[in-house]
Structure formats: structure tokens, C-alpha cells
């Protein structure tokens, strides 16, 4: 019985100043199993990985590897003990070769001279990649490879360290359906060879497809571990979010007016092709598809951030050309960026300055800024979206994810817009705040905006949209009127091999 578990965590706690990132964590990993780890953002998953891989040292608790108590001072220790991690954002060295990426920090060296043995490394790299069923050139530079290929290199790297435990942190997040399938195949192969895998993913399909057991983290604690075939989807969601979610979506009121935004066969080589759709005033058009299907690219092209090669964008029937976000907003198009912290907000700034940033010209005469007007506007729109804060001077980074998103929405409201493009507005937002954002989105539509609602989460697409577009590999794969549409129908369109023609359900 002692050796049934390759890795055991006993009461691991990790405290950072002010927060407990991991609280009394118990965890057991069997040999040759794929163990799914699930939980909302901020539940403690990444701290968990960092403890196992030796990036952080636990504040309390013990770790046992093959029944022996261990402690890691740094990532090298963990690597030597056979633990490897593949991170969410590929952490490769873009300027270096494939071989080097695979062997970084455990290079093959001449036994006496300690010089690097490139020939041997290239040879082994080729063999490793071959084993994984890939023929990537080991001498190729990393930044010439696709994300999926880089992912494979990361796996090869893990194998090359003779890892017995591999942690995969959302490896499928940026992959297409077919690429994910390839990854599943490799993961199963590793499992069959006796490697234990901790697989972290937001996608339920990953878990059902691969894992035999699942552990759910919430609020830095282990909520429970189940066999995958013993737990229902609903129970899992309850475990993840802490209560049942029903009726968080506001009622739909179909009161669509005239067509406001019309996109005609928009194309940009390599990003998206032949995208046509229209949104009416008062309507929420859902847009979904796997990550990497080209949704963000389409939004950014409409918003003037990136160029497109072919096609036309019509607003109220007349063609518009936005060469910059500034022009797009003047034309009446607003965009809520997917990456709130990097693209949406100035996090070091106060709520006030963030809300007014897009609308400074309205608040000034001859560029002289009217402070009183600015405060008033920040207060008006901040209260309209119900930001949870004491004053408009609170810095944005002190707010929760949901409230940060509300600031970003308030910023859009200051402009005189007709169309609002929302790119994953609930990403990384807790469930309570999600409901508030849904309410705001619905109110926007009722106020007469044409809303394009981009999301990867099926329930919210189904719960919010009046119509649904499904994108796949840069094209629109299907369009549904949201009546009786099911998750399966959308998934089939998003992942299926055959191009799906326009359907309505």
C-alpha cells in the first residue's frame, strides 16, 4: 500500500503576506494515472504546481515522493527527483533551438571535459520527438514553431528529464480540436508507460476524455477527490463554485431593432477568412469557438487594432474604415479587451482615471482637463455599473476581477457608441460578479447597443445570446438562432471535422 502513491501532500500550506494561497492541502497521486485538477481562477492551482515543482517552498506541511519525505529548495531539486511541469503559457526560449529548449538545464555533457555534447543532444532530441510522433527539426529555432508544436517540445522536455510525474497546466487552452486530440494521444501514451500526470484544465471534455480521478480546489483548499465516472457534471460545478448556479442569466427580451453593424466577407490571411455577420440594435450576438479559432482577431480587426485584407464593415448601412481604435470609437464601435490587465486597464491608476481615459476630449476644452467634470463622470458611470469600492480614487489593482471588469465597461459607456464588442468579459471573474456582468450586458442591449458577446464558455453563450455564431479555424462554422440549441450542437460545429453549413435549431 505504501507505494500505491507516487506523490503525497500532507497538510501543505503556503502563506504569502496577507493571503493563504494554499490551505492545508491534501493530495495523492497514483502511479500511472491521469489526475485532473480543477478549480476556478485563483483557487490555488498555480501555487499548488509551484510547490510541487519547487518554485515555492511550503510554509507548513510535508511532501512524500515514493513514500519518502522530501523538500525542494529550488526547481532543480524537483527536476532531479523526476517532477516536470508544462506551463499554461508556453515557457520556451524563443531565440534558442528546439534541442536547447528540450535540454535546458540538464544538458548532456562530456563526462570529463564538461563540454556540451551537441551531437548527442540533437540525436536524442530527434529520437524523443520521433517517439512523440513528430518530425520537428531539432535545430529549428523555437519561435518558428506553432503553439501546438511548442507544446510538444515542452512535453519532450519533460520526458527528457526522465520525469515520473508530469504536471500539465492547461495545455489544451491554445490548441485546436485536432491538436488537442494529438495531445490526448501523447498523454495517454505517457500514462501507459507508467508516468503519473496531473492535468489541469478548465475544459470538462479534457477531464472526461483523459482523467481517471479528479480533485477540485476552491478558496485555496482541496474540496474533494472523486473518480471521474462517479461524479456528475453538476456536482463538479457545485464543488468548484461552492453553490448551485441557476438562474444567473437575466431574462431575454427579444426587442431587436435595425441592423447596426454588418460585416461582409472579412478576411485576413492566416487569421480569419470570409467572416460575414450582422448585429441589430438591442441584440446580443454570441460568438464562440475554441481558443485560437480567430474570434479575438475578428474583434480587433473591427476595432481598428489590426488590419484586414479583404471585406467591408458597415455601420448603419454605410461603410466605415477604422484605422485605429480611436477612429473606431469615433465611428461608434467599442471593444472590451480579452486581457483586462494587459490591454483593458491601467491597473496602477484610480478608477476615475481609468473610466475617463477614452473620453478625455469631452472633458476638456483646448486640452485643459476639467477635474470636476471628470470626477462627476467617473462617479456617474462607476455607480451605473455598480463598482464595489469606497471612492473613485481606489486603484484598480486593489479591486476584484469582476469589479475591474466593471471599470472597463464603465469606460466604454462614457463614449457615444452603437456597437460594443465584448471579448471574454467574464474571464477570470468569480461567479457572483459574473451574474452582475451578465446583468450589465443585458442592460446594454436593452439600452439599444448592438452587442457582440465573445465567450468560450458554453453555458453563458447559451444563456445570454439571441443568436450564436460558432467559429472554427478562422471561419464561421455555424450560425444558430438561440432556441433549443444545445451545447452538443455548438461543440459539434466548433470541433467537428466537416464544415457545418448554416443551421437553425
Amino acid at each position, binding site marked *: 500500500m505504501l507505494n500505491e502513491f507516487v506523490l503525497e501532500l500532507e497538510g501543505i500550506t503556503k502563506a504569502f503576506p496577507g493571503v493563504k494561497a494554499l490551505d492545508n492541502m491534501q493530495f495523492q497521486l497514483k502511479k500511472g494515472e491521469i489526475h485532473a485538477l480543477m478549480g476556478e481562477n485563483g483557487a490555488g492551482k498555480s501555487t499548488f504546481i509551484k510547490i510541487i515543482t519547487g518554485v515555492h517552498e511550503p510554509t507548513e506541511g510535508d511532501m512524500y515522493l515514493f513514500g519518502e519525505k522530501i523538500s525542494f529548495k529550488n526547481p532543480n531539486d524537483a527536476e532531479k527527483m523526476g517532477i516536470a511541469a508544462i506551463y499554461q503559457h508556453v515557457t520556451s526560449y524563443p531565440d534558442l533551438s528546439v534541442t536547447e529548449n528540450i535540454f535546458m538545464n540538464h544538458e548532456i555533457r562530456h563526462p570529463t571535459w564538461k563540454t556540451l555534447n551537441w551531437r548527442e543532444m540533437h540525436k536524442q532530441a530527434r529520437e524523443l520527438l520521433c517517439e512523440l510522433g513528430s518530425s520537428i527539426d531539432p535545430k529549428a529555432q523555437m519561435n518558428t514553431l506553432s503553439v501546438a508544436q511548442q507544446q510538444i517540445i515542452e512535453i519532450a522536455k519533460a520526458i527528457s528529464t526522465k520525469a515520473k510525474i508530469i504536471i500539465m497546466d492547461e495545455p489544451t487552452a491554445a490548441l485546436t480540436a485536432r491538436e488537442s486530440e494529438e495531445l490526448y494521444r501523447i498523454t495517454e501514451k505517457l500514462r501507459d508507460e507508467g508516468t503519473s500526470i496531473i492535468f489541469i484544465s478548465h475544459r470538462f471534455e479534457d477531464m472526461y476524455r483523459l482523467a481517471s480521478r479528479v480533485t477540485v480546489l476552491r478558496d485555496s483548499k482541496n474540496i474533494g477527490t472523486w473518480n471521474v465516472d462517479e461524479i456528475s457534471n453538476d456536482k463538479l460545478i457545485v464543488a468548484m463554485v461552492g453553490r448551485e448556479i441557476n438562474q444567473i442569466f437575466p431574462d431575454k427580451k427579444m426587442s431587436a431593432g435595425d441592423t447596426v453593424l454588418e460585416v461582409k466577407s472579412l478576411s485576413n490571411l492566416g487569421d480569419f477568412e470570409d467572416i460575414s455577420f450582422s448585429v441589430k440594435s438591442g441584440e446580443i450576438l454570441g460568438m464562440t469557438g475554441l481558443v485560437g479559432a480567430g474570434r479575438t482577431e475578428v474583434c480587433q480587426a473591427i476595432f481598428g487594432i489590426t488590419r484586414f485584407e479583404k471585406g467591408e464593415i458597415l455601420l448603419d448601412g454605410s461603410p466605415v474604415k477604422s484605422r485605429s481604435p*480611436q477612429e473606431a470609437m469615433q465611428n461608434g464601435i467599442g471593444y472590451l479587451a480579452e486581457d483586462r490587465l494587459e490591454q483593458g486597464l*491601467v491597473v496602477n491608476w484610480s478608477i476615475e482615471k481609468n473610466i475617463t481615459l477614452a473620453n478625455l476630449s469631452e472633458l476638456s476644452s483646448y486640452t485643459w482637463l476639467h477635474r470636476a467634470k471628470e470626477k462627476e463622470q467617473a*462617479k456617474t458611470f462607476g*455607480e451605473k455599473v455598480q*463598482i464595489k469600492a469606497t*471612492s473613485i480614487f481606489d486603484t484598480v489593482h486593489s479591486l476584484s476581477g469582476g469589479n475591474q471588469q466593471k471599470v472597463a465597461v464603465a469606460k466604454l459607456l462614457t463614449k457615444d457608441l452603437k456597437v460594443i464588442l465584448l471579448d471574454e468579459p467574464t474571464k477570470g471573474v468569480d461567479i457572483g*460578479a459574473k451574474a452582475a456582468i451578465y446583468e450589465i450586458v443585458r442592460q446594454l442591449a436593452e439600452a439599444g447597443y448592438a452587442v457582440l458577446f465573445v465567450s468560450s464558455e458554453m453555458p453563458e453563450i447559451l444563456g445570454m445570446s439571441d443568436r450564436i455564431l460558432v467559429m472554427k479555424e478562422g471561419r464561421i462554422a455555424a450560425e444558430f438562432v438561440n432556441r433549443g440549441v444545445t451545447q452538443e450542437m455548438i461543440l459539434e460545429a466548433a470541433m467537428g471535422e466537416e464544415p457545418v453549413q448554416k443551421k437553425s435549431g
Partner: protein
Amino acid sequence: MEQEKQTYQPRTLETQLPFSWKRLFFQWEWMLLLILVAVLLFGSYVSPYFLNYPSLRDGTMVFLDKAIIVFPMAMIMIMRDIDISVGSTVALSSVVMASLYTTAGLPMEVAIVACLVTGAVCGLINGLLIVKFKELSAVIVTLGTMILYRGIAYIILEDQAAGGFPEWFGFFGWGYVFGIPFLLIVFAALAIVFGILMHQTTFGRKVFAIGNNPTASRFSGVRVDRIKVIVFMLAGLLAAITAIFLTSRMGSTRPNIATMYELDIIAMAALGGVSTAGGKGRILGVVIAVFIIGYLQYGLGLINMPSQLFLIIVGALLILSVAIPKLGSMIKRK
């Protein structure tokens, strides 16, 4: 369920901050004022001729000419860029002005306009290159133009000096208006203009936004590239103004004037609290820092201390001013 209920409660946001002593006094500018007082006391200790109004007033003429450039430099550093070509721009504008007057025989007024245009064009070239070739970074671009601009100055004047300007031109460097040096008046005016520009206009707000988060700024409709080009052009233009004052004070010019000015200017800005990582800084702090470094130089000059000592002090001040906040947060973490 409680969470959900909270979300729908009407909420108000305060628009007035309660008064706080900590906020009033926990400012870098107070620290700078203390240092300035220390410098003045030190000056009066080492030289009896230092601490009186005429001395302090005329002392400003020694250092204020280059300090003019510190305003746009602060903006550039706030935007996470740097401009190390300003010294060369001063030299080139000055040489163009002098040679147009002496060699080409144009009227001095025309030469002065040409000087300003030269400076602005130098800045414009910097700005355009930086915006068009983002991967090069401002360091590389201005390093290249630094060599290029001074090189052109050498091509024009070789190793000659050019001078013999009309008498009225000396007014810029030596003139007084109502008993106050003209340079000091210009500096004060520029300080006010830039103070307003940076802290009270939409332009300044956008500069800070770019320094804090360039992508979010662009996504919020800020024309990042255009603002960068304008600021770099301003740097060139003010470098040309510096060239006028400097040339006037020295009475002649050479291609090697204003060497290493960029260092003093960057040091003034950094000491003044402009964050070298971008996004932070105030004109008031920068102005105090100018006087700290300037009076230190002036005081050391009065007692014939080697000017090399001044180099060391500026270097040390620069390191201290950027290291103290870092060390502070390092200690806090422990």
C-alpha cells in the same frame, strides 16, 4: 446568496478623499526639498560668497541652460523611453546656427529660427524612427542619431569654432529682465507650461497612460505613436533652445559642445522622482532636482573644487535616487 444580493444594492462612490497627513507629507518632493536645503547649507559652509541672493541668482546661469531639456526628457522617461541624443542635438543646432550666420552670412534672426527648426527635425527623426521600428527601442535609435547628429556637426564645422555673433545675441546668455536673468525667466515659464501640460491637460494624462500601459492606452483610443513623436520633437526643440542660450553664453560654438549633457539631464529627471521604469513623475520634483544638482555644481565651482568631484556626486545621487525606493521595498518584503 448574500453575495448576489450585494451586487444589486445601489452603491455610491466617494469623490472626495478625507484629509490625510500621511498623504501630504509622504512625498518624494519633501525629501528633495530637504536635500536642497542641505546643499544650500553646505554651500554657505564652504564659501562665504554662496548663500546670498545675487550669488544664487547668477549661479543659475551656470546650469539652467541644459536643465531646459529636462522637461521633455521627463515625459520621455515617463513613457518608458529614453533619449540619449539630446547633447548631440544641442551641438548640431548650435553649429547650424553659427555657420549660417558666419559662413552663409544670413541674418542672426534667420539663423536662430534655423537652429530651432534643426532641433525639432532632429527630434522628429528620433520619434519617427522609434515609432516605425518599435523593435529597435529608443536606446538604439537615439544612440545611432547621437553619433550621427554630432557627426554632422563635425562635418559642418570640422574642428573650428564659430562665433562673432551680434552684440544683442549675448542677451540670451547674460541678459537680465527686471533684475532677473532672462534664462531663469524662460526656465520658470517653461516649468509652468510643462507643469500644466503634464498634470492638467489631456495630453499629459495620455503620456502617463502610455507609460503605465501602452497597450491599454492604444485600446482606449490614445494615439500612442503620435504622442511619442510629438514628445520626441519637443525634446529636439528644447535642445535647440538650450543651444541658443549656451551659444550665447559662450560667445562661440564648437562641434564638441554639450557632450554628455544627456547624462546630467537623465540624472536630474531620475533624482526628481521620474520613474525610470515609466509611468510616474512630477514636474515639481524635477524642478527641485535641477536646483539641487545645479547649486551643487555651482558651489563646488566657487571653492575651486575639481569638477570631477561633481561627476562623482551626480553619479552617486542618480544611483541613490533610484536605489532608495528599491531598497525600501526590499526591506519591506523581509
